[in-house]
């Protein structure tokens, strides 16, 4: 891997190798997630360019294979699958994402996507620490976008491989529950 780079290495495990053990409904959902990456329909091309770069910085993705986090975020926004709450001093989550895109470009002096990786990370660091002066509360905006990013990134089997999570577990279940317990088919050390 170059740096963190490609997703999925480390534990020598491929969650998808177990797909035949999953129930049909779950298998269909997860394989569709992997093989049919949704197109960008909610964000403009310009917003998507900025936000894709930002998603890659937050998830340290700079190689292949990669998880197209923004496409999954876009699908949620497009379909209005939001999380069920909005802070009183914040706009709708969909507007938060758009405003964040605009502010990231401003912070980068034009285009966040075209900025040097060091500058991208420096801006992200200020954002994470709430040390940017935007018209919306920066700490809450960080929570909105990172919640969206993480819920898409760690929904993907490549990310499961990297953390040693076997993925769906129905109908097989588990039997080796104790400390250092491992099912025969589970990731080895």
């Amino acid at each position: 891997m170059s740096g963190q780079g490609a997703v999925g290495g480390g534990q020598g495990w491929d969650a998808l190798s177990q797909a035949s053990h999953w129930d049909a409904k779950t298998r269909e959902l997860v394989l569709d997630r992997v093989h049919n990456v949704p197109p960008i329909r909610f964000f403009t091309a310009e917003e998507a360019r900025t936000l894709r770069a930002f998603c890659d910085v937050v998830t340290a993705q700079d190689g292949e294979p990669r998880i197209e986090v923004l496409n999954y975020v876009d699908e949620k926004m497009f379909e209005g699958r939001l999380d069920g709450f909005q802070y009183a001093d914040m706009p709708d989550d969909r507007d938060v994402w758009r405003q964040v895109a605009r502010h990231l470009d401003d912070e980068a002096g034009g285009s966040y996507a075209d900025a040097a990786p060091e500058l991208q990370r420096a801006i992200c660091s200020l954002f994470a620490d709430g040390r940017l002066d935007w018209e919306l509360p920066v700490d809450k905006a960080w929570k909105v976008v990172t919640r969206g990013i993480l819920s898409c990134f760690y929904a993907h089997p490549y990310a499961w491989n990297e953390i040693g999570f076997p993925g769906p577990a129905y109908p097989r279940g588990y039997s080796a529950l104790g400390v250092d317990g491992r099912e025969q088919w589970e990731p080895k050390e």
Partner: protein
Amino acid sequence: MKPRANDSAFLLDPHRRGVPGVERMRRYRDEDEVDLLIVGCGAGGGVLAQRLARRGWRVVVLEEGPFWDPDRDWVSDEAGSHALYWTRKRIIGGGDPVEMGKNNSGRGVGGSMTHFAGYAPRFHPSDFETKTREGVGADWPISYWDLKEHYEELERELPVAGQHWPWGDPHRYPHGPHPVGGAAECAWRGARNCGIEMRMGPVAITNGQFGNRPHCIYRGFCLEGCKVNAKASPLITHVPDALEHGAEVRADSMAVRVEIDDSSGRVTGVTYIHDGRERFQRAAAVAVAGYSIETPRLLLNSTSARFPNGLANNNDQVGRYLMVQGASQLAARFPEKLRMYKAPPPEVSSEQFYETDESRGFARGFSIQTVSPLPIGWAEHVIAEGHWGADLRRHMADYNHWSVLGMLCELLPLPDNRVTLADEPDDYGMPVARVDYTQCDNDRANIAYAKRVLREIWENAGAEEIFSIDRYAHLVGGCRMGFSPEDSVVDADHRAWEVPNLFITDGSVCPTQGSANPALTIMALASRLAERLDSGRARAGNGSFAAVARG
């Protein structure tokens, strides 16, 4: 141990998870004046429907969400379970806003219990009289002893598994304790090392075959809807028996107004949206069971000449005294592989700190429970510690070495923690709820103390690194029961003080919350209400079911 009057577990199909007989379910017409119309098919509404249908009442339940079929609708996947949560917008404000959605709000037949972790403890006797005992919170107009037999019956119906319970009113459970996974083992070791007692359970998960419900398979997806039919929710514990006895559960039906006859001051039925069309179901009485946000929202939206500020709200009590529990979580890293995704997240818990101990410097207390988030939930812990980018990926790759403990701090009922209506309408044209929440000093002291105890447990377990995240869990209050129209919305029989044939039968009636997960208590309250309605004790009736409910 077979429940006395609930065949749900035996009515289920051993080979399919969906509720049999949905297509054959009795149907009522909108023009039929049913004996009782219930809004919401969760812990409160589901139990009330089952109890009264069995006693011959003509019952319809309106449920906003779908009639779930776990085989067809649910997945063994964290991100794919979004539809289980009530994710319609709520505006959150106050000094300590409470995040909603997947954490505390459900939809569909079975309600939030379809995705609750599974902990099913009872309240303690002290919870019903905190004002008298300790000068904080509120007294209930009923006591623990009014609910005890209902707790026992529901523990048989769910069923609840656990060790002998030494706290509160000590009791046993019908199913023995589940085995403990590696992550919970570490927590228990730490607790033992610093003199804190923990017990396995109590969890509403079958340990062994129960009717046609199979044994738990320990796959860890309790919060994503149990595809096994091992974890309890009203969908499988009460709805099958309700249907068998002629109740109708009308899914995909969003109640938007409880209607009232302004001359008599009595409720006449509920206006609801089904398939995009507004309809009106007539009823002799209405029981609202939409939980602590949607119940106040529905009442506040039901305005009339007699109730210009919302139904049953002429004393400005609807929506007040909303409560959540302080539910910070502390995670700890160990050298061994713990694989916390295995086994149910709810495993062992402690109520040793539940009651007031004056030496701590605050009133009331907290409980301690294992949690065990799946990867997306775990990522929220990691980013809350300030890790992103390469740092985030590195910490996440360590997932299998972590164990997580949560706490449930009893936060006190305060009048300004409340549900109101925001200006913004939802898809149905109904104003969305605004939820304001601010902690008091006692709350802050309780949470800070509990976090120190959790840290002590992890340090005594040999943790190499500890993460901490602040959050809330559960909802109760918002339409509390009390002693007079000036201090509450409903009386001891869940009847609105201001409307004789309107009942509220969900967690919103609770005047206090203890440090217990509320599901079992909500069910027990509904069970008690059913018994009182049917026997006419709630208000002397003239013989017919409808007359009893009508008051």
